[in-house]
């Protein structure tokens, strides 16, 4: 059992605040119950230890360089304090001021939320990963440095020193939570530790310019620069889609020509562009379904218009607003009736829910998730579907953004109930689901040994759920499918299954929802689902 970690340990310099042993982590069900067969974690390289802040735990998420001088350190600390004050200001943080103040000022520290956190439970109940631990550290910093209540902090026994150790550990710790907000669901008062994590990330990004490279430089900045975080510019994306159209025709015998920039179309479909690169069968399946259903739709080749991702959702309100405004501007230009977001949870939430109070005045445009559209098409009978073509065990992963945070729960289930005779739920599911472990950017973060931490800790609960859902058919002769209607979740589940060799050992594969719909179309001679690892 790890040494208990007190709140008072956080600001005390030490080599590493905690260390996880594989034996301490939450046990997995058979045949993955032998820890000795699990992959060993790659230790951090000496160069990384030398260069970056790494005194929190066994990994590094944000590669925060150590300051080279006292002056540099002082500057960082001063910026942190100014960021704290800006988070408490109505001008600089109108976007989340009320929820933040409510969560900072009223937590009873009853710890009711801890057991709901898959990271805390999966870590073997390591104190550092309690949802309340990070929040309490931040609360103490806000009270002492943001509000200047130094005497109060001493009297209440909540004193904390803001130093390099505190700052760097807090920055890292804000990337040990997937923002799934399962903890907020359980809080009797409505305190939201996920929101506090979100605000800490914002402070670091918006004031200190600190964020994981994958999310900021190679994420939202690259998207704004070339059009997509995948690096695809408009020419490349059109080329790739043309290639996918050809592939689809080859696979299905159905001639597909994806429409581009069709003014006046009913629907502007925006995929997570990662699908185009990593899982081309997903945008391909969308095209087949929409064409077969006779929908009026288009893709956009405008900068940002062909990539629905909006990483700002996880760490930076300004970046969120910039991308959302671009999406709306493109829809306006095309004159579409609505934007439909493809299989991507965070993109759906960012544009439909969060940006609902960004897209005001002339920027306003209607938006919805593809889940409802696909469910309506399936329900309408416009497609001829044969469920027996999907007669293999299928379970459904609920993306947190789509389900707990948007309330889009049933449409994807309506589809599966219609086309998948062996569909079974994970437990718990729906709005009480567990995160895939890749939420809030983790799925695309793999610097240093972060992949080890993610797949072993933050995604561990999801792996347990998947194994339990298929416990009646674990024999590798039975091919099984985890349906994850979200690009980031799919990426996290891919890495998870690969990490534990679950395809080789148990024939567990994964994919999206629309692929299953196309697989059920009888006019397609060969199965659309390819039972090979990808």
């Amino acid at each position: 059992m790890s040494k208990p970690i007190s709140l008072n340990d956080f600001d005390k310099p030490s080599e590493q605040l905690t260390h996880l042993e594989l034996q301490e982590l939450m046990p997995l069900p058979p045949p993955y119950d032998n820890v000795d067969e699990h992959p060993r974690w790659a230790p951090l390289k000496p160069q990384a230890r030398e260069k970056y802040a790494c005194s929190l735990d066994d990994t590094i998420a944000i590669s925060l360089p150590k300051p080279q001088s006292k002056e540099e350190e002082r500057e960082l600390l001063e910026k942190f304090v100014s960021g704290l004050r800006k988070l408490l200001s109505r001008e600089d943080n109108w976007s989340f001021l009320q929820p933040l103040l409510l969560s900072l000022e009223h937590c009873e520290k009853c710890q009711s939320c801890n057991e709901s956190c898959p990271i805390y439970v999966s870590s073997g109940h390591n104190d550092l990963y309690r949802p309340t631990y990070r929040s309490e550290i931040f609360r103490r910093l806000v009270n002492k440095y943001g509000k200047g209540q130094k005497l109060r902090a001493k009297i209440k026994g909540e004193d904390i020193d803001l130093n390099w150790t505190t700052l760097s550990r807090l920055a890292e710790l804000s990337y040990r939570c997937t923002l799934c907000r399962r903890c907020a669901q359980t809080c009797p008062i409505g305190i939201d530790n996920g929101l506090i994590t979100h605000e800490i990330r914002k402070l670091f990004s918006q004031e200190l310019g600190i964020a994981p490279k994958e999310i900021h430089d190679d994420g939202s900045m690259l998207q704004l620069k070339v059009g997509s975080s995948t690096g695809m510019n408009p020419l490349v994306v059109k080329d790739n889609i043309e290639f996918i159209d050809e592939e689809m025709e080859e696979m299905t015998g159905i001639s597909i020509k994806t429409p581009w920039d069709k003014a006046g179309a009913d629907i502007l479909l925006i995929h997570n562009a990662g699908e185009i690169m990593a899982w081309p069968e997903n945008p391909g399946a969308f095209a087949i379904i929409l064409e077969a259903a006779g929908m009026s739709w288009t893709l956009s080749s405008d900068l940002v218009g062909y990539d629905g991702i909006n990483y700002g959702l996880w760490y930076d309100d300004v970046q969120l607003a910039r991308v959302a405004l671009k999406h709306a501007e493109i829809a306006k230009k095309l004159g579409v009736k609505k934007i439909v977001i493809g299989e991507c949870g965070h993109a759906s939430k960012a544009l439909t829910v969060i940006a609902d109070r960004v897209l005001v005045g002339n920027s306003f445009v209607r938006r919805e998730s593809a889940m409802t559209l696909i469910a309506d098409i399936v329900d309408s009978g416009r497609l001829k579907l044969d469920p027996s073509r999907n007669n293999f065990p299928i379970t459904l992963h609920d993306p947190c953004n789509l389900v707990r945070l948007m309330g889009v729960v049933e449409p994807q289930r309506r589809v599966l109930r219609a086309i998948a005779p062996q569909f079974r739920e994970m437990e718990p599911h729906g709005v009480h689901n567990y995160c895939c472990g890749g939420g809030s950017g983790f799925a695309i973060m793999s610097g240093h040994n972060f992949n080890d931490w993610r797949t072993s800790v933050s995604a561990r609960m999801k792996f347990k759920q998947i194994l339990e859902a298929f416990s009646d058919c674990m024999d590798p002769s039975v091919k099984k499918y985890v349906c994850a209607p979200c690009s980031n979740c799919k990426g996290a589940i891919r890495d998870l299954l690969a990490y534990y060799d679950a395809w080789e050992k148990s024939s567990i594969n994964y994919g999206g929802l629309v692929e299953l719909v196309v697989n059920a179309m009888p006019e397609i001679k060969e199965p659309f689902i390819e039972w090979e690892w990808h």
Partner: protein
Amino acid sequence: MSALMMGLGYLVAVFFCIAILVRVVHFANTPAHLRWELYPVPHEPPEKVEHGGSYLEDTDWWTKKHESDIPNEIKEMLEEILLLKALRTHNRKLWYVSFPFHSGIYLVAGFLVLLILGAVLSALGLVSAPEPGGLARLLFVHLPALLGFIGFAMGLAGALGLLFRRLTEPDLKDFTGPVDHGILVGFVLLFGLAFTCLLTDPTATGFRAYFLGLATATPAALPPLTYLVVLLGCIMLAYIPVSHMSHFVAKYFTYHSVRWNDEAMEPGGKLDKAIQKQLKLPVSWSASHIAGDGKKTWADVAGTNPTKESGK
């Protein structure tokens, strides 16, 4: 002494009301924030609440009438307020002590309301010295005494339990400071002494005399134990609104303004106008991709592409 306690009573009552009002205004006046709801949202129609769904499950939801199930929302609120449903579901061990503590407070609040009401009506001459067996005596003597007995006993049991848990549970110890312990000790003393008071004075004569004194501005001589209870009660009442114990105010906002707030943007509506106004607020976030200078507005920075501005 009597006059001093009366003055304290007025002061604390006024302070409590103002401090609570300030807190309500403080939260109510914060700007409209981005949507951050969490499902299930109980005012969705029953067929949606069943699985935690929202109106966003319907294609072209904006063309359909969005009906709210207010009775279910009220039911959910009552279960939460009266039974501490979330704590019961997610932290049963703590619920066993928190539930009697909160129920005790509710009953003590009832006790106080009836005593104050009785005192005010009596001061106005609407209720004279209650006669045995009369309705007024039942309402303003026996009922408050009953509420007080049960409320103080439950509050005492709850406060003792909470103190014990906070002192012994490894999960709670590190998150509980000396002030938290002090407050719980305060509640133990308050409820314990008040209960003792009622044991020695089952019809709450001392308490009634105190409130009648307040209502008529006539200092009343009280037994020493009653003085002590009043003093402790005033201290606790003054502390509640300035501490996290005012979560009964916060809870309204965390649930209605954040967790269950699924209000959709309507072009040209009140929310639209409020957000448009907020987009004109200045930004001073200083990271290079924002470069807020305190003059540029949110609309300015959101409409800027930093990769073009900086040539990155």
